[in-house]
């Protein structure tokens, strides 16, 4: 039986895969928890040593396996633990974003944010904002059937 569309949209919650760099954003996530900043439980955090470790293959796999959006986070430009890793991330990010846009995905489905270790509040704020944006967009076209 064809499920009712409205029923799905009510049950559906965005799922966002978030790559956090070990030195800044992951500590920022910790900070958000310690500081008890409220945030929706939409993120699935994957810790990487540097945001530039995130390969396009990781991003595409996340989408193909049902992520509604992917967010890459790292240290602020100039603060990279590995000198310039995040600048390389930025180059790759621009490419991935224009490729996904050309494929027919909305720009907001792939996001990049710089969050430092001390910015727990910003972390929670970003999570809230991105979740709301993706909620407006609805499920991603790349999501396989039968995956919530």
């Amino acid at each position: 039986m064809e499920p009712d569309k409205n029923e799905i949209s009510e049950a559906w919650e965005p799922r966002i895969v978030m790559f956090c760099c070990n030195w800044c954003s992951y500590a920022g996530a910790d900070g958000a928890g310690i500081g008890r900043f409220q945030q929706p439980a939409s993120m699935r955090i994957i810790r990487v040593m540097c945001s530039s470790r995130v390969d396009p293959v990781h991003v595409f796999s996340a989408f193909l396996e049902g992520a509604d959006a992917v967010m890459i986070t790292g240290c602020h430009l100039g603060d990279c633990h590995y000198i310039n890793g995040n600048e390389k991330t930025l180059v790759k990010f621009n490419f991935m974003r224009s490729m996904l846009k050309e494929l027919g995905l909305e720009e907001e489905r792939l996001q990049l944010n710089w969050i430092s270790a001390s910015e727990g509040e910003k972390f929670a704020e970003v999570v809230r904002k991105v979740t709301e944006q993706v909620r407006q967009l609805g499920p991603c076209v790349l999501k396989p059937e039968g995956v919530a």
Partner: protein
Amino acid sequence: MSELKVAADIKVGDRLLGWAASEEVRARGASGGLVTAVLASALETGLVERVLILKKVSEFEAYPVFTSDVKEVLESAGSMHSVPVNLARYLKPETCSGKIALPAKPCDARAVVERAKRNALSPEDTYVIGLNCGGTMHPEKVRRMLETVYRLGPEEIAGEEIVKGKLVFFTKDGKEHAVPIDDLEADGLGRRDSCRYCQVKIPTNADLACGNWGVSGDLAGRGTFVEVMTEKGAELLRNAVSAGFAEVMQADEKSISVREKVNKVMLGMSEKRKAEVFSTIENGEERFEYFRKELENCIHCGACKAVCPVCTCGEDSKCTAYSSLADSYKMSLFHMVRFLHLSDSCIGCGQCEDVCPAEIPLTRLYQRFAVPVQKEYRYLPGMSDRTPPFFALKPEDNEDNEGGGCSCR
């Protein structure tokens, strides 16, 4: 007629008219057989160790070979518009040792440059003899065209040429059969899809840029216009002239301007076609549906990657190693990785489309990603030695690079 040029006078930037010195080579090769003569002399005098050429089976069949045999080079003479292979693909570390020369369409020459950037070959040791190209044809389509439109058998054909907007087949009995190319292409026949919107017709990125455009009067059909693009090109030509294989003379103003004009007309046609093919699909969901539908029949044979001349990853690569057909619901990881990879490096040579057993218009799909990205970064792959924008260390590195070495965009 002006005087013949001596070898020592040939330098970079020269625009010359040339032909093979030997009567036999002139008869066999197209437009005076200059390219054949240059290749043969490079081999004969030891300037290169091997040449990469197409070994002819028939007018519609040929296979690439590396050879050191001058006889084989002379036998390969003649253009092969119906065998659209990209020779650059065969230049890889396993097969590339010593100095190599090859004839190259603009897309072959662009592929050589891109492969050099990815360390698949050494640019100093590769001599690229560029050939003007107004488009190539798929052998299967040519056969269909000959049967249904020209009413000729493939065995009767002696050659073909595009003359004044008409595709002309020359038969062995010396007759010409001409049909306007626009009529053919309206029916999906004629040149390959990617050739119709190709952006580079004169291989200014090669060492020598040869072709019959601009050759007129007495020399029409018996001479080749050649522009010396690099020092390596000058070396090739000096070598051929001093060894007595070829004769060259200064091209006159008229030849130069006619060549420019032909190029302009061809590029204009491509530009028009490009605008037609790549009209934007506005709605995002429709766009995704378009790609999903086109890729529906993909059987994951990997042939598109195996022939891709700008891919130098080899057997194990990200696009194949992590992609599984069983996990591909809406789209496969293979295609997504390829779309991204080719967005800055696709030269639009059309090889992927030629070999696809499911007849997916892959070049069009790849170009859909490549056109906006290459425009944004003002980068035309294969036209200069500029680092591909994806490999830039920081975004600013991509900003101050103008033109990508090409004036055609």
